């Protein structure tokens, strides 16, 4: 089941620069997308979401872009901070209950 894919297992970015995390999906029934951040020994924490009727949603340093025709979304973090170092999961839903997660991208923000 590869309905949501995050092809980059890891990403390293310098502090102050932009981090871009990518996610691709195959199921055209998905109509809501979420990003979660996860620190070791903690559960996933909600970061930002976007409905399929939009192409951009912004919340402070975090912006999510959705390209429905390409079935692609991305999370931009700018400026990146050391505290942003975590694993980022893309998730999608087409029912109210079930989130389908990607495999995650480990972001390392270096000084």
């Amino acid at each position, binding site marked *: 089941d590869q309905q949501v894919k995050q092809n980059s297992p890891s990403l390293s970015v310098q502090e102050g620069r932009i981090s871009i995390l990518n996610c691709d999906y195959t199921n055209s029934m998905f*109509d809501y997308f979420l990003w979660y951040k996860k620190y070791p020994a903690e*559960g*996933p*924490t909600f970061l930002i979401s976007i*409905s399929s009727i939009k192409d951009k949603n912004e919340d402070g340093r975090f912006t999510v872009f959705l390209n429905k025709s390409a079935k692609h979304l991305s999370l931009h973090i700018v400026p990146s901070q050391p505290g942003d170092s975590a694993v980022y999961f893309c998730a999608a839903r087409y029912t*109210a*209950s*079930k989130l389908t997660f990607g*495999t995650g991208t480990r972001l390392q923000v270096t000084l």
Partner: protein
Amino acid sequence: EPEVTQTPSHQVTQMGQEVILRCVPISNHLYFYWYRQILGQKVEFLVSFYNNEISEKSEIFDDQFSVERPDGSNFTLKIRSTKLEDSAMYFCASTPRAGYGEKLFFGSGTQLSVL
């Protein structure tokens, strides 16, 4: 900020034994979920629960699994006869209401190791 609480944080059991993983969702939330993450793999949906009923479950959630809300605060996941492949981090989550836009609040997880 209110949070979802899971106990224990680690559980070690022998294959074939029954385990119960416990969760206390956020107090005014009405929808409850279990997810799991096998080491190195993605987080997978197991089951959702509302109004004392399962509302949706995945193919993983077979007859060996059950969920219960035994009182007004706890939400449990029982695995009747554990298998080696049940070893995973199990996450409980809750939301105040259903809806596509609702974000799930996750607990810190229970690491289950089946030997």
